[in-house]
């Protein structure tokens, strides 16, 4: 008997159902139940009436936006230098930028925390941002580098031919044409930082609580329903932000690694 080609996808489908769809459904169910399993909206309303939770949420967004902005400011020039054949002649530098990604993020974060302790730097928002940028910068550099590297050189030459100085070529052609890379860089940095908790735990000694932290704390202390509701709200918000940035999906794809 011939096996249909589409049958090969069945194992993946099963995997996806068990490990992606089912957990999501469970989160949704738990979010709308009280401890006894009755339907309720209380978990959701509790979040919106709890100033602590709202504050944490606002702080998380703020940190995520700051982290993303710093990553763009540092990552764009880095990517541009890497993609510029005159400035960067070897592939080694690119590997060096990606190398940190080979080491577990948790280990790097712990090591960074130890470093700060040793240097006597007080842990706080500064160290938190430092850790986040350190962890997520490669995710910003790589998609931007990719679009810049693949960009047809003739665009820059055409602009120069039409009278643009190298700086004008950069602002009027290179930057606009590399926006798809920046967009996917933002997606890859912003979304995970909203939900991170490990970095804030280790690099601020839990002084600063992020949204990810309170979800983790609720679940750890068996507050399944409220934890699920918070996770659910976060999913919705991330989903909305994806829609926002992914409106031009065809161009965004070009930037993804």
């Amino acid at each position, binding site marked *: 008997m011939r096996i249909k080609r589409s049958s090969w996808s069945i194992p993946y489908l099963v995997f996806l159902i068990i490990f992606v769809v089912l957990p999501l459904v469970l989160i949704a169910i738990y979010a709308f139940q009280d401890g006894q399993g009755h339907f309720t909206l209380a978990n959701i309303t509790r979040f919106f009436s709890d100033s602590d939770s709202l504050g944490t949420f606002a702080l998380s967004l703020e940190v995520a936006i700051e982290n993303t902005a710093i990553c763009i400011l540092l990552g764009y020039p880095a990517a541009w230098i890497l993609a510029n054949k005159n400035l960067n002649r070897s592939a080694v530098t690119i590997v060096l930028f990606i190398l940190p990604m080979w080491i577990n993020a948790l280990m790097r974060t712990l090591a960074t925390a130890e470093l700060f302790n040793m240097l006597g730097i007080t842990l706080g928002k500064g160290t938190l941002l430092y850790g986040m940028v350190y962890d997520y910068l490669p995710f910003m550099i790589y998609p931007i580098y990719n679009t810049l590297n693949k960009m*047809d050189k*003739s*665009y820059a*030459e*055409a*602009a*120069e*031919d*039409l*009278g*643009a*100085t190298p700086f*004008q070529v950069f602002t*009027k*052609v290179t930057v*606009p*044409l590399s*926006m798809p890379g920046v967009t996917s860089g933002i997606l890859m940095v912003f979304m995970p930082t909203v939900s991170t908790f490990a970095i804030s735990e280790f690099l601020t000694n839990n002084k600063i609580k992020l949204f990810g932290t309170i979800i983790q704390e609720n679940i750890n202390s068996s507050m399944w329903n409220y934890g699920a509701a918070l996770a659910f709200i976060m999913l919705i918000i991330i989903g909305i932000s994806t829609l926002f940035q992914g409106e031009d999906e065809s161009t965004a794809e070009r930037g993804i690694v």
Partner: protein
Amino acid sequence: MNKDDIIINIEHLCKAFGEKVVLDDINLYIKNGEFVTLLGPSGCGKTTLLRIIGGFTSPDSGRVTLDGKDLSGMPPYERPLNTVFQRYALFPHLDVYDNIAFGLKLAKVPQKEIDARVRKVLKMVSMSDYEDRNVDSLSGGQQQRVAIARALVNQPRVLLLDEPLSALDHKMRQDMQIELKEMHSKLGITFIYVTHDQEEALTLSDTVVVMNEGKIQQIGTPADIYNEPVNSFVADFIGESNIFNGTMIEDRKVSFIGHEFECVDEGFGENNPVDVVIRPEDVYIMAHTEGAQFTGVVRTCTFKGVHYEMFVDTDCGYELMIQDYNAFEVGSTVGLLIRPSDIQVMRKERTCNTLDGEVVDANHISILDAEFECPVPEGFSAGDAIRVEVPFDQVDLLDHLEEGVTGGNVHFILYKGDHYHLQILTDCGEYLYVDTQDIWDKEDLVGVAIAPSAFKLTKRNED
């Protein structure tokens, strides 16, 4: 010629990419308002020359002047030139209007004037209704028009065009050729056009510059280039041609394909070897043989639309391509005649291979970075610098690289009526010229062997 008429002057321009020499001492002047085409096969250096004029590549030596002013070191954005790029390079993030207005906005031209100039140039390329269109939604031909408009709107002194029509299909290419020609005569600015398409070059240009291997082969009007090619490369590259080895017996008398012909060429000396070019449409073909200079048998006859193309085997065993409005039956004997003015005689660039090397021992010499067997005559000793001459027909080409003493690939093929004249680029980077009856294709890898008796050695002074 009036010196003021010259807009661009190119002097002793040289450029090499690594080991490969791309431009070798190029000298060329371009007159104001002229339509000049740089024509040659891929890799001949024509695009590099255009890029140097545009300022995108800097030459190793030599200079380009515009209106007598040296352009060396001047970046592209300061040059009063604009380029139409091969693949258009329209900015995908801007619409048609903004693409065209790009240069004007940078030059801080007032918005009202930008509007007027963009509209005018759009009208000129018949794209008036496309202002707001996204460039990705345009066809190849439309993108081409926008690219031309984007360059012309800046009113450049010289427009550079880098194979602008190569991405279009045949019919559209012909239409665009006519439009370009009209634009050129209407605007009166200088066009420098790069192409590998000889038909395009002949159709468009006032002056054609034929290039090969980084050197200018010939500069002239399309008619000059076609009717009086200076060497077998130009003759073969421009149009269809029959190229034969011949001997100039005396002034106005040349012998080739086994017969003697009257011709109009002088000054080639007596009994000197020459190349002879006969265009296929210049051979008179008749069903009767009286009054003919020589005869032949029609081997094939193909209808080509306007004319018939026939291959005729001549009485002395040469193959001749003939184009005529009348068809002649395959297998029939025909009379053939060539008028003196239709015979184009060209000096031979070389009559044998001349290679530099040295003596290894009594039985071996080293040339082309390889050791060849050769009985070294008296008077030569090991280590002597020598110059070696090898006749074209004494070089053997072998199917397998390993079988040869050295190897190479077929770089250029010329059919000479009864044999092929090949240019072989050997592994060491030198050229070897070979006459052979065997059929090879361009880029074929071959082994090279030379019979020990073929070498003629002379001493060479080391300096």
